[in-house]
C-alpha cells in the first residue's frame, strides 16, 4: 500500500469500507425479504391457499 515516499494509497481502504457497507445493507435487506417470503409461504400452505 505504501509508495516510495511512505504515504499510503487511500483508495483501497475507501473502496473496502464502501464495499463492506454495501454488502451489509443489501445483504441484510435480502435476508429480511427471504425470511418474510418463507414465513408467508408457510402460512399460505397452512391456510390451504397453496400446496407444497
Amino acid at each position: 500500500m505504501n509508495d516510495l515516499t511512505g504515504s499510503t494509497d487511500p483508495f483501497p481502504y475507501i473502496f473496502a469500507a464502501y464495499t463492506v457497507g454495501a454488502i451489509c445493507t443489501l445483504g441484510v435487506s435480502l435476508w429480511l425479504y427471504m425470511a418474510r417470503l418463507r414465513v408467508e409461504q408457510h402460512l399460505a400452505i397452512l391456510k390451504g391457499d397453496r400446496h407444497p
Partner: protein
Amino acid sequence: MTNRKAFIPLCIGLSAMCIQWLLAWYWVPVDDAQGEVYRIIYVHVPAAFSAFLSAAILLFTSLLSLKSNDDRWLLTSRAATEIGLIFTILTLATGSIWGKPTWGVWWTWDARLTTTLLLALLYGGWILLFRALSPGTGRRRSCAILGLIIALDVPIIYQSVNWWRTLHQPQTILRRGGSTMDSDMLSVLLGGIIIMAMISVSMILVRYGTLGLERELEEKSLGELR
C-alpha cells in the same frame, strides 16, 4: 408473493444511500488534514448513528416491556437488537478500515473502540439470552433489563472521547462553537445519517412484521397438531 409495501421505505432508503455515496465520492471536497481517506466518514458515522438509534428504540421498548405483559414490545426489542448488532458490526468494520491508514493499526484498545465493541457484544448477548429462555414473564423481564444496560452503553460511547484520552478524534458535528466541517461535507454527512436512520428503522419494522408472522405460524402449527 410477499407483501411488498413493507419493503418500499427500505428500497427508497437504499436508493437514496446510493446517491449519497456518489456525492460522497465525487462531489464533496477533500479533507485538508486526512486527504481522501476521510471519505469513509460517510459510511462510518451514519452506521454508528443507526446503531445508537436501535439502542434508543431498544430502551423505549424495554421500558414498555417492563410495564406491560404485551409480547409485541419484546418482538420489537428483538428486531431492534438484531438490526442494532448489524450496524454496530458495520461501524466497527468501517472504523477498523479507516484506522489502518490513519493510525497505522486495524485495532487498538481505545476507549471509543472498546465501548463500541462492548455494544456489539451486548447486542449479541441479548439475542443469546432471548433464545436461551423460554417464553414468559421471566424472559420478557430479563431481556428488558439487558436492553436497558445496552442503552446505558450509548452515552458512555458518545462521551468516551471526552472522558478519556483517546486515539479516536473528538466530536466533529455536535460540539461547542459549532461543527468544524465544511458546509458541503456536513450536508452530505447529515443526509447520510438521515438516510441510514431511515434504512435501519425500515429494517426494524420489516423484521418486526416477520417476527409477528413467525409467531402466528407457530401458533397455527401447534393448533393443527392438537
